């Protein structure tokens, strides 16, 4: 499920993006739908907002939960208007802004659960959110998956890490009671390259023991998104990569990857 908002007319297109969610092998085998979702948007003044959500495999309506979560988070950031976004140095202001996006997303899940007369856990989903301005990169995350920033030299730095408890197959969800208290938050310098991904990719993209991004994984992807001017072509190639046997045989779960590169100059 995707929610792409086109480039806003009137503002210079300073970001190139590619985003795709594909169904994992085990979900395809069980004839389940893709439970991942993503949403990206370009706001005026060169501000990028990107969200990724991964619905829990065991939850009945998790594909509803993940789609609702990314939409809610994107809309909250977009609706506040870029003039009302905090300054690049205002850590607490940013923390509050992103936390409000997460609590509104959670409130929407609660409303939806009530409307459908189901337990909130039926909509269990993770949520990853990144806002990139020309001065700063701000991230918040509940659950697993990760957000990675690239530099012009092909290096990669983790802004968030996959979070799980004692067991590798349980994580915190936006619907968990302590979701917002345990959320990861970070304010970083402006990014030239950004990647957000669900847990389906983390085992090939990160050294899980340390949470370190594997640079030879990210560098070609960042080069690709920076050099592909056609949004539709970029999307198509990314989808084809994520659906390729080489990726699919290394991951049984749904896979979502959002890539963005800022055009310099």
């Amino acid at each position, binding site marked *: 499920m995707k929610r792409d908002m086109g480039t806003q007319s009137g503002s210079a297109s300073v970001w190139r993006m590619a985003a795709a969610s594909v169904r994992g*092998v085990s979900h395809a085998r069980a004839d389940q739908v893709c439970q991942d979702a993503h949403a990206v948007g370009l706001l005026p003044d060169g501000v990028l907002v990107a969200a990724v959500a991964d619905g829990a495999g065991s939850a009945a309506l998790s594909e509803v939960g993940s789609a609702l979560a990314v939409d809610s988070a994107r809309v909250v950031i977009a609706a506040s208007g870029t003039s009302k976004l905090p300054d690049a140095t205002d850590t607490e202001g940013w923390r509050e802004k992103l936390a409000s996006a997460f609590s509104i997303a959670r409130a929407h899940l609660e409303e939806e659960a009530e409307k459908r007369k189901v337990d909130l856990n039926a909509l269990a989903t993770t949520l990853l959110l990144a806002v990139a301005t020309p001065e700063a990169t701000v991230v918040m995350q509940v659950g697993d998956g990760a957000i990675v920033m690239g530099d012009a030299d092909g290096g990669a730095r983790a802004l968030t890490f996959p979070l799980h408890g004692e*067991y590798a197959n349980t994580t915190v969800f936006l619907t968990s009671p302590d979701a917002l208290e345990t959320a990861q938050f970070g304010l970083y310098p402006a990014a030239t390259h950004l990647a957000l991904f669900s847990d389906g990719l983390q085992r090939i*993209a990160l050294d899980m023991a340390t949470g370190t991004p594997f640079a030879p994984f990210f560098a070609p992807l960042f080069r690709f998104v920076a*050099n592909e001017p056609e949004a539709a072509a970029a999307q198509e190639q990314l989808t084809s990569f994520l659906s390729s046997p080489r990726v699919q045989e290394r991951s049984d779960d749904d896979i979502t990857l959002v890539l963005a590169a800022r055009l310099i100059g």
Partner: protein
Amino acid sequence: MAETGRLEDAVEFFSNPEPRCPCVLLLDVSDSMRGQPMAELNAGLHTFREQLVRDPVASKRVDVAVITFGSVVQVVQNFIPITRFVPPTLTTQGYTHMGAGILLALQQLQSYKKALRELEMDYFRPHVFMITDGEPRDEPEQVLERARKQLEAEERSKGVLFFAIAVEGADVERLRNLVVREPIDLKGRSFQEMIDYLSKSVSALSQSRFVEDAQQPMPPPGTI
């Protein structure tokens, strides 16, 4: 511009070790299993292995251990990757020391989890499948009580998922009093069906992710 296929060639993958999915088969080998049932159970262990090895995910993650209980309880097979598991040939012996079997299974799991932590290996919540055709017999009440309490504590702290499978002859009511989760009643079904059910459940538990406490085995055959 990049053409389709180029990303596939350019992107390199990091190789993380697969998370471990510990699975204990806790098997009743008391005298009531003599003859046909034991022969079918032994054959079933081979089927169990074959079915999991065929599963691309389970084959990389499942570590299986086999513990038997009769008049003695013993670890017949310590935790081993399913691909390297050589099914043992079990023989029947004596009474049904189920409580001692449960205690040994929990103890083995504790030390295996400790070993995995020391190796910094990721792991899933371990599960035990206890298969019985009877009820506890010739076992001191305090051993049973200790097993019941310890299992309850382990389930409460989310240390284990313990499933009791009742096959022909089992006393489901007594099992219900001993274990936390509702026993899976497969009385009247063949061993083949039971083994199919077992491998499908283990396979499902070895993949995907769970909302806390939502981990369940497959619904028993015939209920869906």
